[in-house]
């Protein structure tokens, strides 16, 4: 996880789940989708994607099948499972709670103490 630049621990899995929740993607497509939806703000060490993808697949959160890419090459496509969708819901809620808490903490002024 440390390989993902600028990413907090645990966020790569959440980003992958989010990316594949938007449609079936191969590994490289996941990378591009994360860059696209984060407005290019999040840089990921590309190879680190694959251990994360295999781990998520093993946990049953995503599933894969071999297919053909746009440039007509054989590629492995990933899709979110029902368990993955449920996990993503939990993770998103938890992330939002954390983000709100941090934002609230950061907005606090001396008067409010």
């Amino acid at each position, binding site marked *: 996880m440390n*390989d993902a630049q600028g990413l907090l621990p645990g966020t790569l899995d959440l980003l992958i789940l989010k990316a594949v929740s938007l449609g079936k993607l*191969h*590994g*490289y497509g996941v*990378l591009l989708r994360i860059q696209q939806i984060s407005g290019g703000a999040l840089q990921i*060490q*590309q*190879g*680190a*994607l*694959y*251990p994360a993808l*295999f*781990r998520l697949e*093993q*946990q*049953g959160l995503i599933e894969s099948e071999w297919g053909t*890419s746009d*440039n007509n*090459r*054989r*590629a*492995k496509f990933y899709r979110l499972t029902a368990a993955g969708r449920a996990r993503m819901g939990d993770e998103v809620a938890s992330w939002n709670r954390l983000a709100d808490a941090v934002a609230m903490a950061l907005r606090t002024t001396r008067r409010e103490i």
Partner: protein
Amino acid sequence: MNVTRLWRRIRAAWRMLRQPRRLDAAMQEEMRFHIDMEADRLVRDHGIDPREAHRQASVRFGGLERYKEEVRDARGRRWLDAMAIDTKLGVRMLVRHRGLTLTGGFAMAVAIAVGATSFEVITEMLNPGLPFAEGGRVVSIQLASDVPGRTERRLLHDFAALREQITTLQQLAAFRTVQLNLSSRNGPPEPVRVAEMTASGFAVPRIAPLHGRYLGRADEIEGAPRVVVIGYDAWQSRFGGDPRIVSRAIDLDGAPYTVIGVMPDGFKFPIDHQFWIPLTTDPARHERLQGPELFVFGRLAPDATVERAQAELTAVAQRDAATLPAGQDRLRFVVLPYTYEHLDLTNANLIWALRIVRLLIGALSFVVSINLAVLIYARTITRAGEIAVRSALGASRRRILAQLFIEALALALAGAFLGLLLARAALSRIASLSPANGGVPFWIDFELSAGTVIYSVALAVIAAAIMGVLPGIKAMGTNLNKSLRELHSRTDTRLGSVWTTLVVGQVAVAVAILPMAVYLTWQVVRMEAAGPGFDADAFVVATAVLDDGANVDPTRVRAHQLELVSRLQAEPGVAAVTFSSSVPGFSGDRRIEFERGVPVRRAGALDVNTLDVAVDLFDTYGATILAGRGFSADDLGAARPAIVNRSFVRAFLESRNALGLRFRYTRPGGDTTGQNAWHQIVGVVDDFPGFPPAPGSEGTPAVYHPVAPGGVHPFALSVRFNGSVPDDFTRRFREIGRSVDPGMQLRRIMPLSELYRQLRSFWHHIAWGIGLVTISVLLLSAAGIYAMMSFTVAQRTREIGIRAALGAHPRGLLASIFGRALGQLGLGVLAGSMLSGLLFATVGLGLAQSAALLATVAAVMLIVGLFAAIGPARRSLRMHAVEALR
């Protein structure tokens, strides 16, 4: 780790093991695709040269090999690698500690062999199902009487009545086994076991015939043509697999029976049969509880249960009770699993007892593993330094325990493998012995079943957990820093009272159990070594039966017997032929009482073997008359003389003079069978055969009565040869039998030595079993005591070394070392001796008889313990002060 995760890991590891190359290739392809796509993008968006684009894409991807490794780890390979390393380490440890491996492996193998064999046999016995469709729904019906264990089998009348009334059972059927002479064109007649069964019996297993048909209801009718169904084995072995066997006639007891069908291979229903004829006996000819003895069985109707069938039968019995003569109403029907009836498992307590025995024998492997755990503990504790280094380097507690477990598992599995091989050999011996003892029911299979293999492996895994993990937890409980400090010095771990208790306990258990085990082995060996006291190889025996019925005309028996004897005597090489009610050495038990005033050694029932013998039997067997006289032709009158054997005199009369004493037979309840039936002892004969009937027995009391030809039926014939028995004598014997009477059956024609061997083979195998268990207990105990004593002394190496360096006298030091060791050993021997005395008392042996054995075993254990202490003691005495202080 929860079960789902564990399962997922196992599955991933299994996939990894099964197809690692394919998974690796797919992963490589996926990563290459990624790099190629990124390179294409770089070329497209930034106009970079394709080769340079590819290089940059590879850099952006990061270390390809590193991520491949990470993916492999995510798939569970790390776990697998760790296991492979632990297994390798475990095997290396087995090779390094050969003594422990051999002792532990052998003890484990014996424990697993005993556990697996008994598990297989008892599980097969307790299995209530028959090996065909819905075999568990086949039940037997017994008519139980008030006397426990006694059942009424003359069920013809009840069977006919139940057949019409019962609704909870389908295809109610009955059978009995008869022996008939099967004659073939090529040879003399041979007795075969035939199931005389109702046609409905074939509908119970629902197995179609291979050729022709099986029995039908019409075949049961009195006067119907004689028909027979034969089994596959009989078809192959006796009729050469003749394809036109159906509708051919075969000769059974001199009468032609038409073969109407052949049953498929493996069909031996109802017990172990190969011939089936219809049961044609008409119930109208017999009163209730008269007629032939039958087994009644049926299949539960689709919606019925054993309880409902029982309730229906009880209701029928109650309804009929009012109409029955006094006494008969006490009989009650019992429904029980078919297999239980034929294995005499009719008592619920007995079934529970068998289950408990199975559990206890399984527990034997735990006793062994706890013993081994103590041994392994001694080894593990000496590795405390190594464990500490591994902990310091970051190995988790779980990881170290896993390694210790896998080491122990390697030992336990090696033992289990050997144990299963032993069990397999033992089971095949049991299977090969069983035909001599009446045949094995078809549903009992003495092959090692998958269940038994799983059971044995489970025992090994649990044993490994006890052997590996328990010592590991104890060893890791010691202080890490202290262990690290001890890495370069001798271990200084103090085990205190736990260790002392273990040493004392180990010695006590060995001293308690070993004398008994050695005693049992010795008794069995003694019995095995004892010969019959005469040349049994020169004898051939057989049992002759006329018409397989109870109502045989004595004059016909006499004529046949005399002719048979004279014809056999005329055979070349035959020295003498005699007869008796059964083969000497194996006759039925009866109970006697002496005339009032005769001082009898033993209180309570006096059981004897009783044999009716020809007056020349003692001469033929060369039995020595020790007192009084043998039988003569004059004894065949009314005087009721009897000759008893030496064991009789020793057991009942303390070897006093028995001549002239009188006794009579009683029933088990104590009733005399007749007021005038007193028998007078006129002679004492030496025991023959001379071997004891069971281990620990000094011989069976026997009584011989003279009998004239024709006086007993069936009768055993003993043929003595001058030299060796001719090879084809069995065939010749049968030919002579056929020429005397084609209907006469000659059962179990065989050399007497072979009969004795078969009948004693049970004890022969028990001897092997007890011998193996004894050796493993002996080895384990000796190894355990050795390991403990040497370790106890090794613990004090530093202390002894320092004291020696400071000038303590070696003699004083040795006295201190051995004083402590002897104290522990002595305490163990004392506790063990008391337990052993109790054990011997339970088998009726006094202290005087067991003292020598006990002393020997105690001495052996003391010597082993002291020997174990010598080595470390000498080492510590020689140690330099600097080395000791380091």
